[in-house]
């Protein structure tokens, strides 16, 4: 399969209510042509509802949906020409692997010789060449996932939708498939909308991530800005670990415990604000460093976690924070002990101040 055409998706004011609950609340979102965009949110956030609106299985109460220039909001699923991969694969057990993948081609009246060739190409693309005659129940979870994917892309849809397709796989296979899915996307170039509740998966695979909560889009951004400059407390808490300290606006900017915080970029927020602390962005300093923002804390506990060591500490005002440090032999030799008082440093570039709320 060659790199095919792709279409941008434009979502405008899409609203869907179930009873009194709004599953989607005036959602606006643009998915760029050929982009890998992930809808990330907790369960019940509306991310799957939004995907079902894209697929055509859920008709929103109002709003507009464009594929390219075409309005498709009233178009039934089978006329939308989108590939879709479900969480539980939903392979057809009464057909063998080849027949599963041939299904969308036969519906489109593809000549028989072409069907066989394209099925084999799709199988090779997902690294299952020669598996056509296998029965579905003879496949492992990972193989089923690949067949479901091959079936969704064999008819070269311009849009591919995936609903938590890796959640049933074990961790190692999942991480392997993340890389593989991303590679496949880069090769085929179709616009991809991917739903997950796993923030690491979203960060690993996506061009951009749309964080959804309570039926609203909280933020749409590339992985790094999303992680480093979250728009609000929800995004900051949902992606990565973080603790928040109240900060007060003062003459020179924002201050915590009487000290004005050094920041790389002036924060957009005003009024009551919070300082976001991520454990891996804090460092335990051997000596004070005036280029950094510094906090004094008393160590409560030191937890060895294999790839890193988590130091749990309490600030003078009683706030608990975590500091993540490398677990190399040298670092472990000098790691703090419970009861020690330590000075923590936070670089101005990593100092993020968010509006409260």
């Amino acid at each position, binding site marked *: 399969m060659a790199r095919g055409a792709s279409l941008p998706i434009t979502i405008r004011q899409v609203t869907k209510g179930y009873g009194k609950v709004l599953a989607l609340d005036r959602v606006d979102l643009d998915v760029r042509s050929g982009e890998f965009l992930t809808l990330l949110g907790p369960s019940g956030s509306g991310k799957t509802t939004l995907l079902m609106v894209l*697929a055509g299985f859920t008709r929103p109460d109002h709003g507009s949906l464009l594929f390219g220039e075409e309005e498709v909001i009233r178009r039934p*699923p*089978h006329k939308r020409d989108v590939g*879709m991969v*479900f969480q539980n694969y*939903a392979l057809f057990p009464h057909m063998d692997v080849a027949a599963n993948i041939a299904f969308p081609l036969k519906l489109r009246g593809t000549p028989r010789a072409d069907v066989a060739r394209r099925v084999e190409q799709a199988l090779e693309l997902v690294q299952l060449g020669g598996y056509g005659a296998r029965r579905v129940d003879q496949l492992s979870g990972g193989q089923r996932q690949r067949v479901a994917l091959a079936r969704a892309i064999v008819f070269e849809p311009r849009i591919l939708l995936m609903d938590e397709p890796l959640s049933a796989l074990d961790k190692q296979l999942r991480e392997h498939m993340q890389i593989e899915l991303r590679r496949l996307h880069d090769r085929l170039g179709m616009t991809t909308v991917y739903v997950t509740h796993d923030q690491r998966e979203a960060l690993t695979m996506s061009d951009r991530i749309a964080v959804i909560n309570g039926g609203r889009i909280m933020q749409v951004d590339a992985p790094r800005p999303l992680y480093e400059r979250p728009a609000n407390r929800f995004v900051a808490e949902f992606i990565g670990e973080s603790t928040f300290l109240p900060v007060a606006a003062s003459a020179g900017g924002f201050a915590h415990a009487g000290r004005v915080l050094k920041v790389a970029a002036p924060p957009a927020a005003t009024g009551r604000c919070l300082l976001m602390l991520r454990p891996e962005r804090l460092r335990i300093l051997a000596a004070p460093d005036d280029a950094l923002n510094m906090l004094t804390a008393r160590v409560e506990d030191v937890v060895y976690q294999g790839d890193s060591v988590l130091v749990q500490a309490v600030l003078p005002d009683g706030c608990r924070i975590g500091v993540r440090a490398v677990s190399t032999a040298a670092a472990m030799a000098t790691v703090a002990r419970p009861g020690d008082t330590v000075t923590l440093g936070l670089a101005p570039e990593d100092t993020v101040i968010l509006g409260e709320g």
Partner: protein
Amino acid sequence: MSWLSRPATETQITHGGRLWLYAVAALVMIFLVVPTLIVVPMSFSDSQYLEFPPRRWSLRWYANYAGSTEWVQATFTSLKAAFLTMLVATPLGTMAAYGLFASRLRWVRPVYVLLVTPIVVPVILVGIGVFYAYAKLKLVNTLLGIVLAHTMLAVPLVLLIVTSALKSYDMNQEMVARSLGASRPRAFFKVTLPQIRFAVATGAILSFLTSFDEVIVALFVSGGANSTLTRSMFNALRDQIDPTIAAISTIMIVVTTVLLALAQALGRQRQGS
């Protein structure tokens, strides 16, 4: 080690300790089957009357059955009614099962219960009710009337069987099929139906038998040229005790057993697939 002291299951219970259970089971089987099977030797009797055990053997009562226009006509009526009932009840029951399975509406439960009532209500009540309704509609003693009444009794069976098959069916498959380009009816016929086909076939066989074996409703609404076989047998038993009845019973036992065995085999296929 004798068979009696060998363990019967994974527990410590031996076959010896289970003898009483085997005896009870055998007795139950005998009580269930013998009254049915007793007509078989009686049908091959040469006697003028129903007689057990027969003193002389013959096929004359089978010949009598085959030679009687009345019996042959009743047989055809029954077969027609059973076949038509199957044709109507199978799609209806399947549609109901599918609809209730796919629907997320609140009244799925009440509708399901309503559809199953005909097999819970005593058949005599159904018979009386249908008779009065048919008297007004001029459907008494018509083939259409019999088929409709039997369909009412058969739909719940199809519904129950197909519903239980759908319980292990993943509706996401139909959604996938639709996303891949199949319209809703096409998704049903290409993806859903092939996976519940054994249940549908079992439902069809049981629909056929429901009508073919039914006597109570038939007593009320079938008659004259449209008398079913069971109804004619009932009349014959009242008027003239004649071993032809035993011959017909034997034929019906064979037909029913074969069809039930077929339904069983389909059920096994269903679990296997």
